């Protein structure tokens, strides 16, 4: 039962991930290298305020059933 539930979950996730990607690329134009000023701002990074994010995740991890899932960065100014 557990295995079946996981398999279903994976399929749903993969489909949703693909849909997000396709929708994103089809309707919006990714920025040119000189158009990344807003994306370079600290508040646009996924690791913004990483330090207090860690505290908060730590609280949730210890008070809720299961935690985790916070991933990596990426993006930014795309400078060399």
């Amino acid at each position, binding site marked *: 039962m557990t295995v079946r539930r996981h398999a279903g979950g994976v399929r749903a996730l993969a489909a949703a991930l693909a849909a997000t990607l396709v929708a994103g690329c089809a309707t919006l134009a990714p920025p040119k290298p000189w158009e990344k000023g807003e994306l370079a701002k600290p508040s646009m990074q996924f690791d913004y305020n990483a330090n207090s994010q860690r505290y908060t995740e730590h609280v949730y991890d210890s008070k809720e059933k299961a935690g985790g899932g916070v*991933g990596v960065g*990426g993006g930014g100014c795309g400078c060399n």
Partner: protein
Amino acid sequence: MRPLWAAALALPGILPAAAVAQSVPDQGIFTLSYLDYRDWQPGADRMTVRSPSFYVLAPFAEKWTVQGSVVYDQMSGASPLWFNTLSGASGEGVHDYRTAGDVKVTRYYDRYAIGIGGAYSHERDYISRAASLDVRWWTADRNTTLAFGFGGSADYIHPTDRNLNDGNRETYDYLIGITQNLSPVDIVQSNVTYNDGRGYYSDPYKPLDTRPERRRILAWLTRYNHAFVEQNATLRLGYRFLNDSFGGTSNAFDIAWVQTLPQGWTLTPSYRYYTQGAADFYMNPPYPSGYVRGGYYSADTRLAAFGAMTFGLRADYDLTQGWSLYLSADYYRQDPSWRAFGEGSPGILTFSARWFAAGVNKTF
């Protein structure tokens, strides 16, 4: 009395948590911060945690960065009701500490970066060691980044009560993620993590608490940031779906508004809604109803069905020469009646917590 605070043992650093973008940052940063945490339930004494921590990230030799952190948690107070009524520790004060540290080194290449990390956490009755490896690869236009991560951890539990048995646990984490610049003002990230653990998951301090020896957690996290150029603000959204082999799914949705103000101020209000289903072997009170000899059983309300909300506010203030200060306050509350997609578990009390954090940052 460890499981209160560090329970899930999701060590910072076990997975690539705070990776930077596609190039070596041109500045280093260090942060010194302090957390003051307190929680309470109706009729129960409070639990407090005080944690100073230090974080540093430094670029070196043009193509490398090193980052590391240390944290010291000092816990005191009594356990929540559901906890100490079973353990016989009722009325006794709980005093414990945790020291933890992690370090990560990243090497940047033109089109990819590789990071290797290690983490260590120590409590009186719990030791955890973890290592991680991650690779990020980006397209030539640097608008798409793919990430792959692998982590492993080995935990050792040796209860302070000598009548209880020691336990071991090994877990492996796998991550695959994509980050996409959608437009000059939109960025989205989606990560799937899979955590596979074998070993001791039961709570040694709770009689009858018997959990499966294997646990698999699948989490899907999607985050989206949008810049409002005219307003000088950023909208940050996140959604996490999590499936746990212990039974029940959880959903977390969070939103934050980062408002840049004149004179170097930034104000960030935030909100989070969370809901979880109960574990298959969680049994409602009264204790020990539902217990079957030889079967799985837990009365730990963290495994119950409930909803939770967090309200947060953070203020940042930029000083000169790369110094900045921050202060944040969060209020958190769990309530079985806030559960979505089903009924909350009956007979459990609301649980509340608040935490303040303050810190100083310096870029160099």
